[in-house]
């Protein structure tokens, strides 16, 4: 993604390219670079977890302790936010966390012409958020029946205020999947655009005669931004997992 500088647009990296046209009964199910990246991520996750936990020794090897650290980390997040009943959702939260984390980090590996950040597309993040919120609603209805809708009714408020407060609560609930998906997508998108722009400055400055003296400045900034982006990649995966847990805790415990 970096050091192109041939006047490439900074948003060119988000373009979806068709790699393998597949058409199933008129539905365009072609393998795109986005899909390929997700398959690679799945392969990496599966391979890593399979081989690192293959030995299952009591004293873990290095790889095994990495998987155990991730496991413990997600398990603690679920326990802290949902409680022990929430552990039935552990597979969901763990899958979401590791999927988003690996996709974010894969987007940070620069391969000229190929690098693509799957989570910088709102279609992906919104699908994940809709999955989460559907599970929250369905499990809430299954667990509490219609009593689940009590989360829309604020407690300790005079009856006269209900017509005002219930729509507010409903809008607040609907806005959850939106803020969940927009947060992840916007962070990744903005970060990668910023990286590309500052990397582009290097090339422009190098080609500008005397001003080439200044070229190391954006280079330094790009290095710093790359570090920041790696941090953001991990942080956003964590935030996604934490918010999933917070929403699930509503479904598990009913009204707040």
């Amino acid at each position: 993604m970096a050091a192109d500088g041939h006047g490439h647009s900074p948003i060119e990296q988000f373009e979806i390219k068709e790699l393998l046209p597949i058409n199933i009964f008129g539905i365009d199910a072609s393998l795109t670079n986005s899909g390929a990246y997700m398959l690679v991520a799945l392969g990496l996750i599966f391979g890593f977890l399979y081989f690192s936990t293959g030995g299952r020794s009591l004293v873990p090897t290095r790889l095994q302790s990495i998987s155990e650290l991730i496991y413990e980390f997600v398990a603690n997040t679920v326990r802290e936010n949902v409680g022990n009943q929430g552990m039935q959702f552990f597979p969901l939260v763990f899958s979401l966390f590791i999927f988003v984390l690996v996709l974010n980090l894969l987007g940070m590996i620069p391969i000229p012409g190929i690098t693509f950040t799957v989570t910088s597309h709102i279609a992906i993040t919104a699908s994940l958020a809709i999955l989460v919120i559907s599970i929250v609603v369905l499990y809430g209805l299954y667990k509490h029946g219609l009593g689940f809708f009590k989360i829309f009714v604020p407690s300790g408020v005079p009856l006269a205020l209900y017509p005002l407060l219930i729509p507010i609560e409903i809008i607040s609930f609907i806005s959850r999947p939106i803020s969940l998906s927009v947060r992840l997508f916007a962070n990744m998108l903005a970060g990668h655009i910023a990286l590309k722009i500052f990397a582009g400055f290097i090339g422009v400055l190098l080609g500008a005669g005397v001003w080439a003296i200044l070229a190391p400045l954006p280079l330094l900034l790009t290095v710093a931004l790359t570090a920041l982006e790696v941090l953001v990649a991990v942080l956003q995966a964590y935030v996604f997992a934490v918010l999933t847990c917070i929403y699930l805790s509503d479904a598990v415990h009913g009204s707040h």
Partner: protein
Amino acid sequence: MSPAEKGSDRNDGQLSPEDRAEFKRRSAELGRRLDEARPGSELSKSGKSSKNSDSNELMGRALRLSTELIGGIVVGAGIGWWLDTYLMPSVFGVKTWPLMFIVFFLLGSAAGMLNVVRSGMKMKTGPSAPSKGPAVPGDEDDVK
């Protein structure tokens, strides 16, 4: 997988009550010692984390709060606009534009504020529970 589960033999289903009580006591003790030994877990979150990670955390909080607010406003305005353009004219045959849009925009802003206040409160208190020791084999109330 806790180490305790792996250490026991085939007959871990037949622990005597005293054994189990002893085991529970030891696992609680281990959990407490782990909490003490782990510097990065609960203690440092409350105050003594370094300045650099502090500012990163604040940045994350600010981004989170802003999307909460924007999400509320966008959803409210969207619902109002949809009511005005599709539902009210086609179902009830009344032209309400821009009444519903304004009303729901305001409701949405209130919902956004509510989101911000709620997640702000959650950040302040911080949902933290003391971490437990390893699970006792054959104990149903621990972890499903």
